[in-house]
């Protein structure tokens, strides 16, 4: 009785003044997404965007790019005005779950080194901060996509190949390989050979142990325990079991399907055996729960090409079904296959029926859900376009025919049937377009290496033209944070700059204030997102290439790329014309062939991107336009101009 009374009195006093803003009522999930084609995604590497909470600043090293810098969810929420100003409608945030703290002097700041799928990465905040961020985004009609990884966990264990119980690492070789020469098998870029029990080369029979007397069978794996570095017991419990992992060592030949699917991801990231039923169930439970906890609206999924399609069928369908039961539909999942092979990347969105063996696994395990079908992901991160469109064409002035050819394969390679209970849009229409991201050098880094003209003005023009393509092409544009601030870092981790430490804009010597909204590229993006919002054709219209060319030299049409956006759900029309040539003006005409458009003859089209110049479609349906080097136009019918 006394204890109860005391407890009540204390509880009254204590709870009266401490509460989490978002967590004390059960979250009821809702469908916030409407039509994913309308979205503009902004990719945020949380650690690098904004530090809003000193309370989670643990062991920061802001001067080294491979270490934690302090950004967090609170910081991102505090900067939503900035992001909204840009015209963004969806946030893609880096992984939220607890990571290996540090490994080989590199931190898990990026979020791709999972150790515990059930807990948040405290560097970024707690669940309250995450839920608050998502709620704040929803209040602004913005959506949130969470990045996840199912292919691998962090470097949780080592292979005890010599059975001595400790992780051995050896460096050998001369290091004399001439720079630029091919890397022989077993060697790294430096020419040294790394022999490491953390990350041994792939062995299809499993990593083997050897002693001085010879082979000793399968090498046992050892999970080191070191809380300071974050090497703690993996969770859920299934991820602490050796047989959850394939244990075959590091993938070094991506063309070998076995290595691709069962090898560890380079860097010692341990490959999960995603063909196991219990692993599939655990992954669904672990990641669906983050949506149930946060009300986020989608997943960006890492390294999908390293995971069997049977997993994707199960994972995506069960996640959709589970969330839909709770009121969350149109949940959007797009996968990243870091590859220029369009056929390969498209494998994960096309309808691909399960095998009998696969279905037997579910039957044997009395899987409670509906029968698994051929549905997979909603969309793909359009890496082929990154290479063949943005790099080859927009940056290097390559053949625009290459981009047209790529687009022509979309329906074939990505599929035209939306998965059941999905966002409801055919995968080929909602591919996630991007110029660059956290895994590749920034566009401006490459622009600064331009062979024709390295001037700041040219670099900016190249970027602006690429952005024009990004925001007008069919699909969902995804802008990597900092692009609008003209960040120009090279490869990872140089491309992961702190937003709070801006660089001088191109051609300038002093940096603007952080989160500046007055810069030329910020305003350019703002303009493009504004056009996209104003003209439905730029969001939902079907894309049809009306002019492309293999010419890249002195030809009068070299570098021209033009496409229409019309049809689909919208009767409106837009015509986008780009001149990617970097040396001369080009026109939409070569010899006796002039660009033909579907706008009615006599229609007056207005360049809403430029100075509102008007052009009239000729009586034969052709339209001849001339564009200065590295420029573009967005033409809409005069009556539609806003």
């Amino acid at each position: 009785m006394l204890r109860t009374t005391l407890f009540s009195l204390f509880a009254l006093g204590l709870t009266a003044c401490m509460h989490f803003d978002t967590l004390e009522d059960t979250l009821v999930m809702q469908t916030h997404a409407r039509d994913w084609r309308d979205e503009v995604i902004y990719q945020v590497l949380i650690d690098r965007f904004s530090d809003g909470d000193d309370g989670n600043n643990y062991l920061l090293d802001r001067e080294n790019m491979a270490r934690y810098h302090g950004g967090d969810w609170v910081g991102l929420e505090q900067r939503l005005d900035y992001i909204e100003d840009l015209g963004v409608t969806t946030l893609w945030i880096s992984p939220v779950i607890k990571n290996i703290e540090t490994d080989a002097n590199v931190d898990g700041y990026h979020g791709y080194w999972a150790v515990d799928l059930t807990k948040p990465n405290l560097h970024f905040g707690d669940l309250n901060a995450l839920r608050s961020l998502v709620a704040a985004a929803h209040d602004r009609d913005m959506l949130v996509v969470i990045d996840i990884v199912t292919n691998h966990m962090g470097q949780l264990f080592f292979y005890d190949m010599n059975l001595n119980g400790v992780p051995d690492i050896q460096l050998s070789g001369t290091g004399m390989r001439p720079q630029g020469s091919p890397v022989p098998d077993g060697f790294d870029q430096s020419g040294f050979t790394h022999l490491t029990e953390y990350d041994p080369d792939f062995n299809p029979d499993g990593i083997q142990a050897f002693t001085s007397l010879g082979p000793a069978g399968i090498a046992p794996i050892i999970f080191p325990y070191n809380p300071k570095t974050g090497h703690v017991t993996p969770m859920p419990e299934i991820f602490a079991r050796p047989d959850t992992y394939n244990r075959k060592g590091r993938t070094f030949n991506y063309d070998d399907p076995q290595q691709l699917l069962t090898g560890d991801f380079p860097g010692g990231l341990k490959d999960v055996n995603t063909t196991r039923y219990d692993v599939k169930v655990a992954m669904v439970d672990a990641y669906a729960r983050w949506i149930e906890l946060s009300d986020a609206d989608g997943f960006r999924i890492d390294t999908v090409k390293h995971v069997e399609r049977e997993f994707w069928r199960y994972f995506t369908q069960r996640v959709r079904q589970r969330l839909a039961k709770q009121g969350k539909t149109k949940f959007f999942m797009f996968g990243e296959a870091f590859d220029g092979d369009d056929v390969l990347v498209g494998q994960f969105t096309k309808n691909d029926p399960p095998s009998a063996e696969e279905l037997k696994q579910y039957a044997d395990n009395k899987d409670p859900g509906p029968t698994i079908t051929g549905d997979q992901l909603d969309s793909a991160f359009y890496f082929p376009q990154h290479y063949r469109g943005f790099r080859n064409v927009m940056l290097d002035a390559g053949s625009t025919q290459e981009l047209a050819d790529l687009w022509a394969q979309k329906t074939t390679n990505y599929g035209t049937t939306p998965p059941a209970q999905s966002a409801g849009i055919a995968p080929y229409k909602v591919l996630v377009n991007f110029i660059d991201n956290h895994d590749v050098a920034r566009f401006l880094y490459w622009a600064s290496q331009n062979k024709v003209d390295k001037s700041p003005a040219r670099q900016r023009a190249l970027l602006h033209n690429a952005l024009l393509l990004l925001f007008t092409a069919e699909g969902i544009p995804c802008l990597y944070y900092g692009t609008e601030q003209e960040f120009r870092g090279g490869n990872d981790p140089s491309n992961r700059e702190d937003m709070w430490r801006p660089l001088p804009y191109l051609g300038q010597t002093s940096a603007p204030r952080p989160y500046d909204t007055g810069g030329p590229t910020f305003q350019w993006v703002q303009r493009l997102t504004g056009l996209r919002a104003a003209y439905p054709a730029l969001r939902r219209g079907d894309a049809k290439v009306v002019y492309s060319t293999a010419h890249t030299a002195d030809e009068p049409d070299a570098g021209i790329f033009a496409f229409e956006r019309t049809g689909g759900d919208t009767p409106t029309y837009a015509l986008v014309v780009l001149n990617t040539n970097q040396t001369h003006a080009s026109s939409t005409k070569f010899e006796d062939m002039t660009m033909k458009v579907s706008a009615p003859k006599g229609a007056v089209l207005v360049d809403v991107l430029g100075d509102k110049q008007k052009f009239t479609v000729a009586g034969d349906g052709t339209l001849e336009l001339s564009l200065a080097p590295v420029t573009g136009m967005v033409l809409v019918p005069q009556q539609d101009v806003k």
Partner: protein
Amino acid sequence: MRRDPRRVPAASNVLVVGALASGLGLAAPALAASSSPTTVPRAALAGPAVPAAAPAPSPLPPPPSSQPTASQPPITDPSADPGDSGDASAPAPSETPAPTSAIPSTAAVAVPRATDESAKPAGATADPPPPPSDPHDPNQPPGYANGFHFGSYGRVIAAGDAAGRPGRDADIVSRGSRLDESNYAELELRREDYWKKTGAYTRIVATTAFANPVFHYNGQFAASIALRNLYLEETGLGAKGLSVWAGSRMYRGDDIYLLNFWPLDNLNTIGGGLGYAFGEARRTSLKFHAGLNQPTDPYYRQTVLRAPPQNQFGETEVAILDRQKLISSLKLTHTWPLGEAGGVKGILYGEFHYVPDGQREVESKVYEALPKDFGFVAGGQVTAFTGKRSTYLTVTGRFAQGLAAYGELNAPTQLRPNRRTTGAHELIVTLSGNWEKGPVGVMFGGYYRQFRNASKQLDFDDVNEGIVIARPTVWFGQLAGLSLEGSYQMQQRGVLQEIDTNTFKPVIAGLGRVGIIPFITPGGAGGFQRPHIRFIYALTVRDAGARSFYAADDVFSRRSVDHFIGMGAEWWFGSTSYFRD
């Protein structure tokens, strides 16, 4: 959940036989500095420490001890209370020592009472041992007397749990039951002189303190030592009622013995101060103090290695950041007498903390600016006392803001994005008292504390907590007694507890304890009478929330019931630290 691995809950202190120094009962600064006395504050600074300049973690605040203080009514002989005993032979009230609670401390020092016979213990009527040549009541504040003097506070205990593991502080709140405190001792040496020419008194105080562990426990011929006092004070120099001091000093007011807690004012400072007691009766006093410190933390000091000047070989250390904290305090006290010996004492109290701006190196030749910062404390106290049998009731309230919320010997553990402590605060409200009648008495206390770090987001460092505690005692004649102690403490931290599916609240932990403490004492009855040789048994019950504050494999994370069994001693006598503030 990610946590600084250095960070452990309060209750993970280990007593020597068991105990750790930090379990000895840390001063209020530690309480203010963090929600856990054993928390080693993280630097609130971002960026790495430059290797050569990486300072050691902040030290734990010095462990104080607890005894009745100047304003806490001292022991009065039970036989001196005619109303209690009805003994016609009892001394008249006028013969009893004047309760110091009724007299401003400066008044107490104005009249040397080195040969105050009235302080002779009432129980000292039996046969040998022969009375000392200078008998005194160890529970009375020492008066001035020319020459060298010695005083001490100490406690030593041998203890364990039911499984034979060392006894260990099990409290989850910053200030919990002190039954499981570990070893601690202060040895005070002082020199006192009366100057006929000026009518002034000089007192030089040097107090050495020893914390756990002790040699006879671990066999290590070493000690954890601190100099807790080293100051000189002049009283009556130039003006009656005026006192001036300078040096290093424990500078504090009244405590709650049961919690080892000075809730209103408890400064450990190097500086100086002056006080003035007004009027003949000196019922009103005003004290001002200012001091400097530099806790060992990169928030205050950072050194880096540089090439020596004049093209010399080697390297030399340079303090890139080297800033001190200024702490000043002001205390106004007034006592209203009531009845023969009772009264009401009121205190208004304030502190101001300030640190100048600076810069630190976060990478070679890359600097981070640190802005100046400040904080304040405002508080008050009301104490009503009878002047008899140490009976009193005290209420305190204190609010600390900004830099001051972390305490005087600590660095902020979190900052706002502008690198200031704006928003950090600590609120403490306490109630404590003692009542004695005949052979029985009860001591009690309790507090509510709210601490919020500078960062707006709730996290593990953000705490609401409180405790209620009572210790009734019965004395068997003048030789022995039996105390029982019961307490219940709760703590709420800003970390998630899933109370229902997908519904979370800040975790709430509760811990209850009952204890039995039989003791023998030569000083007779009285809650503040010491020395004691005592046996302690305490039963602790912790709920799931409390267990969740301990790391996996810590026995406290698994045990809902714990036993503490110990035997030890506690004493205090003749020490200025516990009678004058």
